[in-house]
């Protein structure tokens, strides 16, 4: 197996992992730096449930970066890099296989 083929497999695994993380974080459009901790409690006096909401520092991976100056904080950045690298790797694999013929 050539180095290019190994690179292709590694990039594919990285992309799959990051996509999994994006799905796990709830298909966020933009990367978030906070998430809301919601606690639901029964309110006996008003006879209803009430929510206690609190913002906590929490990185949630998004499709697009939260800051345009930090594009690496997004899935789309890695998708673009991966696709580009996969194309280069494929081109080199094709070249080397033609050369060996």
């Amino acid at each position: 197996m050539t180095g290019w083929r190994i690179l292709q497999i590694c990039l594919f695994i990285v992309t799959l992992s990051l996509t999994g993380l994006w799905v796990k974080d709830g298909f966020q459009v933009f990367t978030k730096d906070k998430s809301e901790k919601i606690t639901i409690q029964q309110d006996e006096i008003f006879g209803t449930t009430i929510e206690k909401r609190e913002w906590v520092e929490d990185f949630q991976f998004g499709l697009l970066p939260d800051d345009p100056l930090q594009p690496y904080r997004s899935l789309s950045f890695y998708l673009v890099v991966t696709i580009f690298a996969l194309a280069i790797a494929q081109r080199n694999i094709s070249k080397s296989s033609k050369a060996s013929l």
Partner: protein
Amino acid sequence: MKSLIVLYAFIFTTLNVYATQLGNVKGKKLVTLNKAVGSSIVKFYSNSPFEKFEGNSQSLQGSFTLVADQLEQSTGQISFPVNSMKTGLSKRDDHMYGKDWLDSKTYPMITFDVKKFTGIAIKKADIAGIEFSAIAEGLCTLKGVAKSAKAKIYVKYVFESETTKKRAEGDLVMVDADFSVSLKDFNVLGKSDIIGSKVGENIDLDIKLFGNSSH
């Protein structure tokens, strides 16, 4: 027997004369938002083709006066600082506070002045309290622009008891309110064509208020 009927009729009439829309509550009741009663919150939702997001502010302050004899005449003012609005994305929050959007430096507060209640419907009345729905009509002020607004409200008014005293003095009140604001109406234009694509033209507000009455 005849005198007994007359007595019953007298008691019934007397009770009805003195009972108000808020049961045995008389006169005006000033209700002030109080964290001890519950966490007041305004949640806002933006719905647009390319992005949906929500956020909230939990820094509401204010009070309202319920006029027991004539709930229609109830008034009040609720406000919250623009800088207390959070969406979970600091960059977006910073943009939201900026000049193109809510301009928090020049207009630090968003307020809702209640001028009157209309369409009052008593939903429940018992020894514990009263529940009613209504439309709160008033003025919403955002980015220095005041526009008339109507909010659907549902009020739960709980009379003071040994149980309520553990939370706060006086009668306890919870208000659920819903209304919508059009950003364009308040001169919130944003940058380029973001409104309508990434930010909803109308922002839906879901408000929950908790307060207690002063003696």
